[in-house]
């Protein structure tokens, strides 16, 4: 089979994996080796769906023994099964890298024969890259749940980042759609990798020659919209991942109805883009804005509001905290204002050292005034033009302001495929 055809099939099989960031690893050039890595990551292109392409994202093989209902590569699906040889994949990676098409390799795989067999093949690819081709760039490997720890140990020495996809937030959903997988089987290696990472951090400090183990940490992915799981259970799970397993990122993948006529799966007509987008916004609140999952949603209100973003939603529910005076507020308070992000908040603090911040300055500093103006005062003056009342502000945002209206009707994904710009990773 021709290489072009093979690449086409194995890229198509890999495209539903969302993770593509190349951040988190800061490795300088080395003599006799090719490449380096960039801490914030670099996007090299954008595909027609607007998602960034940073890594060469392919499956090693799409030949799978599992039969997960939602997956393109499930055993019962009738289509062509192909497999790279390690050499082919290495050549493509090196040649793409040298032409600056990509930032590195993202290698994943369907499970052929057994988890061990597959993982060994993938390790073989990265070993050739690192040891024979002297490749020093970024590698992200998808670990296969259920493999021997020895293989995880070995892979961790050669890759920058490893990830294990949790796919579905609850054991129940997993039982339903992917009966051969279990949550325990996936959480176990995650915990193991976390311990290894902590141990390695200590070692690197003490021993000069200790090899760094997965310097960019681990990530995971959850699928949205294929089961009845609520947003609340999803962000609770993400919060636990960030706090307990020190996960670098949790990715959310809106379920694309690739599999037709399966009674287990919802007959989704539309791709849940907006819900996915709102989940990413909530995720950012958890990681960069000091929010707790319980502040964003609760058992009583388990779904994210699709009309307004989660931060606006929180602000409208806690209108008693507002308005905030930008010239006096602390950074934590500023971060609670819709329309003020991390960079802007820091700029405001910096600027205050030189004199009071005026309303005109706010716009220059990057405050999104069409949202923020209802929640702040500047030098004592309130610019919202209407009473500080949740319902009034909400109505105004949704129906009077044409720009906001448009955003709330058809806003799609802005953040999720561009992790590096927003300091993710």
């Amino acid at each position, binding site marked *: 089979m021709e*290489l*072009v055809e093979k*690449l*086409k099939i194995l*890229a*198509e099989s*890999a*495209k*539903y994996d969302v993770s593509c960031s190349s951040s988190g690893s800061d490795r*300088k*050039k080395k003599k*006799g*080796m*090719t*490449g*380096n890595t*960039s801490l914030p990551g*670099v*996007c*090299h*292109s*954008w*595909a*027609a*769906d*607007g*998602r*960034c*392409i*940073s890594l*060469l*994202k*392919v499956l090693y093989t799409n030949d799978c023994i599992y039969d997960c209902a939602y997956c393109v590569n499930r055993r019962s699906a009738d289509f062509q099964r192909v497999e790279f040889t390690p050499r082919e994949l290495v050549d*493509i990676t090196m*040649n*793409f890298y*040298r*032409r*600056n*098409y990509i*930032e590195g390799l993202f290698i994943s795989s369907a499970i052929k024969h057994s988890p061990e067999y597959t993982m060994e093949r993938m390790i073989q690819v990265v070993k050739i890259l690192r040891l024979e081709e002297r490749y020093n760039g970024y590698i992200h490997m998808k670990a296969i749940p259920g493999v021997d720890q020895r293989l995880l140990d070995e892979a961790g020495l050669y890759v920058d980042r490893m990830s294990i996809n949790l796919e579905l937030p609850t054991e129940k959903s997993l039982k339903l759609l992917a009966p051969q997988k279990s949550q325990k089987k996936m959480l176990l290696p995650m915990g193991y990798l976390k311990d290894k990472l902590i141990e390695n951090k200590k070692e690197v400090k003490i021993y000069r020659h200790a090899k760094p183990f997965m310097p960019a940490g681990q990530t995971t992915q959850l699928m949205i919209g294929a089961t009845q799981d609520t947003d609340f259970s999803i962000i609770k799970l993400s919060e636990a991942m960030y706090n307990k397993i020190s996960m670098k990122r949790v990715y959310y993948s*809106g379920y*694309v*109805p690739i599999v037709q006529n399966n009674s287990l799966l919802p007959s989704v007509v539309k*791709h849940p*883009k907006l819900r996915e987008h709102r989940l990413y916004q909530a995720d950012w609140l958890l990681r960069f804005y000091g929010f707790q999952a319980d502040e964003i949603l609760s058992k009583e209100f388990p779904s994210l509001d699709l009309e307004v973003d989660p931060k606006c939603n929180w602000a409208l529910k806690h209108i008693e905290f507002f308005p905030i005076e930008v010239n006096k507020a602390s950074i934590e308070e500023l971060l609670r204002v819709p329309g003020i992000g991390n960079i802007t908040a820091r*700029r405001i603090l*910096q*600027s205050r*050292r*030189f004199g009071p*911040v005026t309303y005109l*300055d706010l716009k*220059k*500093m990057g405050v999104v005034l069409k949202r923020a103006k209802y929640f702040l005062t500047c030098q004592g003056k309130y610019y919202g033009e209407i009473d500080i009342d949740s319902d009034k502000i909400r109505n105004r945002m949704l129906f009077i302001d044409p720009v906001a209206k448009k955003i709330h009707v058809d806003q*799609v*994904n*802005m953040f999720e495929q*561009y992790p590096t710009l927003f300091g993710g990773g």
Partner: protein
Amino acid sequence: MVVYLYDGSFEGMLTCVYEGYYLKEDVQGIFNTYQYEANLFQEARFIVTDLEKSHKVGLAIVEKLSETFFHKIVNAFFSDDYDVATHIYKLLRFGFKNGPEVIMNITHPYVAPVVDLANSVGRETHLFVGLVRFVKLKGGIYYCEFAPTYNQVPLLAEHFSHRLHDQVWVIHDVKRNLAVFYDKDQWYVNEFYGLNDYELDDEELLYQSLWKTFHKHIAIQERINPNLQRSFMPKKYWKYLLEMN
């Protein structure tokens, strides 16, 4: 009313800054002599670039102000903006008088123009760290043509001399007829009008088609969104992007 003109180089601009201080003149502006439009009310004086003087100014910026300050000025300078040298001169006078932290006062009329330009240039540099596409020629030279909005050639050189330090490459700005050459050891920038005649490496077309195939098939059909794609990767850059042609 006197304005200084420099030869278009960064060192030339710094020499003007030096002279402005040394001659204690009330300098109204500093301009690139190739861009300058003569004005009846201004006396324009060409300042000859002096590497020693420019080095002194450069050192003073790093030592008395800060490295951040220096980077902002370098980035802003390569925007090729008509007024950029004047803005930099004003900012430097303001900075040397008031200390390095003025750079954080980003709404100040002396600081804002330089920081804004520097940020625009920096954003484009980061974009091109990804969007530069090399073509492998016979003989093993990797060659890239592109047409950035700002003068990115000197800014990209540093990154690629680390990333691709074990191969010979050329990055050629077609718009400015400027290129950076790297010989596995050092890089240097020079005027360049393109290659007249060259042959591609035997495998070049194979990898080009592989990349195009990959780029096409990694997109999810159900969520095609050309507007989003364009907002990240503006159409003005497509001409030299292999996968978009």
